[in-house]
Every structure is written in structure tokens, then in C-alpha cells.
């Protein structure tokens, strides 16, 4: 059994036991089970799955890092997190478009470019995850 905490600066989104978690990281998607070795890695924007007792919770997360501590503790510190079914897809799409528009404007530095890209990735993940978990399915967009 894992003890998972998903924390953002705004609130504690999830705290409880789980059988496994699937986490998007900058070096690829990883799944963590009980008995995982201590690990610290960087979280990417994407879909986080918390599997507990046959039920799976889907969340859209962005930027941050994860820590696997000894004693089967997993701490996910994300900049933002949203339960998949609660994402307002239309607004997420609008946000993604805004982020894309930024890319067309003047970009002065490499850091700025990275920030804009991170924003696009975050909104992209939100749109895709939100669509995937819509009650009435709409065709998913290709990347």
C-alpha cells in the first residue's frame, strides 16, 4: 500500500492510500508501486492516475516534482492539479489558444520561450485529459 499526497500551493488535492500511481515525468511516464526505491524526479504536465481498490482517479497536473520516500510514501508537489472530470474543456481550449498566441508574439529570451512552452504543454494536457473523461465523448485531437 502506498501513501500518496498530491499537493499544490492552493490546496491538498489528495491524501490517502493507493495501490499504485502513474505519474508523468520529464523523463517519461512512470508507475509506482509499494516498495519502490527512494526517488526524486521532475513532474511534467500530463495525466496523473491514482489507482486505489480497483478505482482509478484521473487528474491533470502541471509542473513540479515528485518524491518517493522510504516507507511507501509518495509526495507529488504540483503547480496545479485538477480532477479530470471537472475540467471545463471549452475554457481549457481557450486557454490553450491564448498560450499558442503568445508563441507568435515576441520572445526575448530562452527562459521566456521555455515558460511559454510549459504553458502550452500544460493547457494541451488539460484539454486532452478533459476530453478523454467527458461523459459524452468527443473525438480526441491528435498532437
Amino acid at each position, binding site marked *: 500500500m502506498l501513501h500518496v499526497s498530491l*499537493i*499544490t*500551493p*492552493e*490546496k*491538498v488535492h489528495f491524501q490517502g492510500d493507493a495501490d499504485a500511481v502513474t505519474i508523468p*515525468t*520529464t*523523463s517519461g511516464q512512470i508507475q509506482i508501486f509499494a516498495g519502490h*526505491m*527512494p*526517488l*526524486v*524526479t*521532475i513532474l511534467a504536465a500530463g495525466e496523473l492516475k491514482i489507482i486505489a481498490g480497483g478505482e482509478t482517479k484521473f487528474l491533470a497536473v502541471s509542473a*513540479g*516534482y515528485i*518524491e518517493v*520516500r*522510504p*516507507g511507501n*510514501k509518495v*509526495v507529488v*508537489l504540483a*503547480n*496545479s492539479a485538477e480532477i479530470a472530470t471537472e475540467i471545463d474543456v471549452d475554457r481549457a481550449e481557450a486557454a490553450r489558444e491564448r498560450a499558442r498566441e503568445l508563441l507568435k508574439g515576441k520572445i526575448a*529570451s530562452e*527562459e521566456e520561450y521555455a*515558460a511559454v512552452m510549459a504553458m502550452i504543454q500544460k493547457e494541451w494536457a488539460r484539454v486532452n485529459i478533459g476530453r478523454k473523461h467527458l461523459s459524452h465523448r468527443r473525438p480526441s485531437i491528435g498532437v
Partner: protein
Amino acid sequence: MALSGRLIRSRIKSVKNTKKITKAMELVSAAKMRRSVAGALQSRQYAKYAWELLLRLKKSGDRDFAAEHPLLIARPVKKILIIAVTSNRGLAGAFNSNVIKKAVEQIRNPAQIGRSRVGAKWVEAATPTPKMDFVIVGKRGEAVIRKFTKNIVASFIDFPDVPRVADAAPLVTFAIESYRKGEYDKVALVYTDFVSALVQKAKIRQILPVSEVDLEKTLFPEAESQTPDQTDAFDVGAAAFEPSIEEIINVAVTRLIESQVFQAVLESSASEHSARMMAMRQATDAATEMIDTLTLVFNQARQASITREISEISAGKAALE
């Protein structure tokens, strides 16, 4: 006397209306204050984990990352960036003037602010009079600080009543980027510490270079000196770091600065609302008192005019007899 009676009555009416407004503002501020305080408490959890990780990683194995990371190294200070967090709206008692006073104090007394704190030590300033630039959050502060200095490089006037992380993010990005580029050798934050609903204090804290003491004071004000919980700490040598410790420290430092600024912004917002709540409560009390006094004056005037009328009538009657 009839005229004066009418005047007093309309005065009472207007004071009553004002009282209704101040009472409503008091209640609204109380609700907003509760939301800001709850937000500040929630964000503390995040800050705690980020803080623990950084403390653990900073000295891992034989490498001292504190001496390597650009945001952790102190440079002799030539130029300072001061971020002052004020409110967009007034009627909040001494809230804004306290922050402004604290910020303007730095212009007058550059010797103290010129030093950077690193660990328990201070790095002395490169010059006795370092240059200072300001970033202002809130319309109120902007208007006043502009009178003292021309060096306002940015102002953020679109913070909502209860700020979210996304609102504080551009502030942090601005600070980190200009520090990295070497435009500033120190970044300090002037904000209002929310001690309780009755007590708020304007504080100044160093945010860059990252200072443990200042971080602790901002994030965990109630603890004397908080040593993080090491019970489930892992042995750094036995843990895996992907892609590398440097990358992770980079992320952790940024997150930590973000949560420090976010916490300060939330504390300021909680302070603003509670200051406004207190100001409005006092205004409501003053209005109640004024209504009482005016009612008394009105009754006296009415009584006086009745007495005079009676005496006039009885005098007239006496003259007839």
C-alpha cells in the same frame, strides 16, 4: 427651529445609510479574510515539503550545491529590487501606509538593506549606497511610492481579492529572471504579516539569494526555529535522482521561491481584509455613536421648540386677559 430639525433629521438619515454601507463592507471583508487565511494555511503544506527537500539535497555527499546554484549564492550587492505588496483599494486603515513606510525606509537607510543573508552569515554590500528599484503590487502603493522614487520598474495592479498561484507567478518569474541575468544582486519583499485578525505587521524579507532564515520566517512564522521532520527522510546516497540532482534543485528552488512569494501575497491579502474589517467596524461604531448624539440633539431641539411654542401661546393668552 423647524428648519434645523429637518436638517438634523436628514443628517441622521445619511449617517444611517453610511452605517449600512460600512457594516456590509465589514461583513464582506470578514468573509474574504477567512478565504485568504485558509489559503495561506493550505499553501503551507506545499512549502513544507519543498523546504524539506531542498534542505536535504543542499548538502548531499561530497558536493555542496548551496555553493553552486546561482540562486543560492550571494553576490556583493550593487543593485536591489524591492517588491512591495499593497492593496488595490483603500479604506483599509493603516494597511497600505505601513507597507509604504517600510519600503520608503529602505530608500532612506540603504546600509541595512545592502547586506544579503546567507545561512547565518551576512554578505556585505559592494557600495554603501546600493541602487534600488521597485516593483509594486497594488494601485495604492504605486500611487504613493511614485512620489518617493522614480525607479518603479513594474507594477501589478490586477491581483484579485483572494490571489491564486497564477497571480503571483509573473512576479516570481520577473524576480528570478532579473536576478539570474545579474540585473539585481538582491531581491527583497515587503509584505504584511498576518499575525492575527487584530495584529498585522509590515515585514521585509530577502527572497533572493535564497536565505534559509528569511524563508523560515515567512513560511513558518509560528515556530521559533522549525527543523523539518526527518523521520521519513531518505539517505540521499541511496535515492535515485532523475534526470540529475542539479535539475531537481533547480526546480525545488524555483518552487520554494514561488511558494514564499505566494505565501507573502496571501498573508498580505488576509491582512488587507482584516485591516479593512477593523476599519469598517470602527466606522460602524462611530456611525452608531453619531446617530445617538444627533438623535439627542434632534430631540432636544424638538423639545425646545415645543416648549417655546407653549410659552408663546400662554404668553399670548396672558396678554389677552
